[in-house]
């Protein structure tokens, strides 16, 4: 048994008062959970302390919360580990290195109803419904069940592991800046149907998600949802797979998403390293030199980057030809560029995807003499 101090963010709407912090002393084994600690405080100190919970075994997804600023499940976070993190966070600056309070808050990016209970409907469930989370097969349904190859379903097992706890939504840094972002949980759910061989509206789904200004290209690639998810769904990875599928379908979205990826990929094949001037131009207006007419959005984007360029020229940051004129940037030296081109030829032919979630890591380190000699 050990003693812990939980510093809980409280909000009691019926009181008419603003949210406030309250500390609770609890005593329990370090291997028990933060949720156990909260329930002990509720039993012993204040019956009005409110938290949503049910299974206490990371199955039901009810007890999403922030613990020391990190989103996750209260029942899956050991209180001893939470104490270690609190002490670690306080170890720099003026803080002490032990006996710090464990900070418990309601999930982020959602309105708070009471204490640790958030309104999952207004953000999470609304966005889940936004991605049409059911199968849309064409034609008459078969007399009995649909038959699919097991291999074709393995691809979507990771996104099927979601328990709808909202921890990823709570942690999402894009949603913090843009509350309309469809978000990690709903987009992971969208991939579950885009990847399902029984679904017949894959293209329509991808068009919809790519052209929404708050869709797949609004994810800022911060990895927060990957660390927050208690079930290993890695929502950001699913969003990147949606982008890959949208690219394969050649969906020219209004957000310049596909343009940007294509421009980047082509540029590295030609130059080996980033030609920033060319990347900017091609992201907004591919083929500006001839074939295609730039869109209104593209012209706006290019014009919008002009003040930045002018400031850069003033300080000397951009005062050189390769930084100002697209395409002047040098290639890699001494035949290295041809090596990069050979890699492109090989990889674009195979396009292999290695998914560690499904294939796992090799358990046994091969002996030195058994190592493959390629």
């Amino acid at each position: 048994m050990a003693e812990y101090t939980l510093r809980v963010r409280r909000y009691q709407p019926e009181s008419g008062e603003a949210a406030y912090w309250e500390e609770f002393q609890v005593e329990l084994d370090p291997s028990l959970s933060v949720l156990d600690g909260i329930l002990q405080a509720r039993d012993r100190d204040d019956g009005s302390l409110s938290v949503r919970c049910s299974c206490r075994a990371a199955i039901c997804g009810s007890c999403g919360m922030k613990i020391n600023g990190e989103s996750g499940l209260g029942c899956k976070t050991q209180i001893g580990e939470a104490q270690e993190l609190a002490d670690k966070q306080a170890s720099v600056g003026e803080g002490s290195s032990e006996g710090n309070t464990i900070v418990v808050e309601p999930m982020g990016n959602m309105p708070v109803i009471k204490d640790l209970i958030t309104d999952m409907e207004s953000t999470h469930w609304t966005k889940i419904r936004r991605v049409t989370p059911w199968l849309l097969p064409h034609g008459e349904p078969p007399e009995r069940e649909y038959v699919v190859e097991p291999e074709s379903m393995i691809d979507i097992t990771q996104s099927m592991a979601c328990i709808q706890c909202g921890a990823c939504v709570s942690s999402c840094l894009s949603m913090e800046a843009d509350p309309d972002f469809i978000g990690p949980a709903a987009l992971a759910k969208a991939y579950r149907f885009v990847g399902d061989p029984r679904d017949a509206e894959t293209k329509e789904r991808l068009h919809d998600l790519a052209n929404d200004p708050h869709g797949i290209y609004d994810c800022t690639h911060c990895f927060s949802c990957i660390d927050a998810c208690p079930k290993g769904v890695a929502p950001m990875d699913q969003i990147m797979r949606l982008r890959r599928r949208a690219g394969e379908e050649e969906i020219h979205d209004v957000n310049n998403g596909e343009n940007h990826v294509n421009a980047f990929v082509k540029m590295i094949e030609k130059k080996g390293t980033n030609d920033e001037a060319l990347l900017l131009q091609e992201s907004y207006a591919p083929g500006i030199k001839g074939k295609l007419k730039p869109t209104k959005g593209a012209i706006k984007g290019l014009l919008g980057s002009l003040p930045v360029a002018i400031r850069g020229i003033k300080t000397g940051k951009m005062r050189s030809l390769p930084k100002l004129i697209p395409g002047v940037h040098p290639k890699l030296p001494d035949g290295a560029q041809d090596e990069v081109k050979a890699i492109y030829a090989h990889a674009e032919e195979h396009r292999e995807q290695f998914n560690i979630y499904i294939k796992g890591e090799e358990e046994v380190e091969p002996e030195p003499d058994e190592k493959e000699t390629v």
Partner: protein
Amino acid sequence: MKLAYWPGCVSRGFTAELHGSMAITAEKLGIELVELDRANCCGAGIIAEHNQELADTLNARTFALAQETGLAMMNICSTCQGAQSECQQRLDADSAYRAHINEVLSGQGLSYEKGKGGWTNKNFLWVLVEDYGLDKLAEKVVRPLSGLRVGPFYGCYVVRPKERLGYDEYPDRDLYLEKTIEALGGEVVEYDGARKCCGFPVITMNRETSLRQAGTHVGDAIDAGADCLVTPCPLCHLNLDMQQPEAAKIVNRDLGLAVLHLPQLVGLALGAEPKQLGMSKHIASTGWVEERLAGTPA
């Protein structure tokens, strides 16, 4: 200490002052850098988004070039670290997949071997704390950053995902900037955005989401009393510094906070001059930082 060195693209492009300041700071630290000038872009996560095998092979090539030198590899970009660690995790997970990737590299006389001689690829920040040592760094300080209030800004790619980035072995990697600032004699400023996203990855796709993130973090650091930010990521620098005047318009407030590259902050404490370190090239003026340090000449 001698290291193979992958500077990345942006450090030689729009943030060329980073590449220059790293050279000066490395010399002052006594670190010899062998630059991998034949190496290619890490893909920044974008090439992996298009074709995972392509990103894995391009980075396996860089790793193989580094392994050829017989030296551990250092990078100076959080984004390179994250994108390369992602590929390395897949390459290291499975020998058959590695053999498939090495097939094309073998035609170029190259091969990436898992764990060859304890080979590592580390950001300058990790090298500084784990290999160089903060005690040794503190001994080299000739101009302590006394009274300089510095806000750390990590960049997502060296903070998450923890399991991929070696936090099991090095659990304090998300505190290294604070520890480094303290070792240099500076004062750490706590503010909300230190481990959040600068917004750069969506600057061409959703400018408002992107700049709202940058503007919010810079504003929070100012409100917490920071004299400057420091970052180990040049892409974060683009959004926090180069785009700062644009971000100010989006968050509708005055900003104007200097953002230093990590080698610049270290270099200042080791006695290099701001101009030498390319600080005049920044968009947000570094004048205030120079004023604060003027009382403690090297």
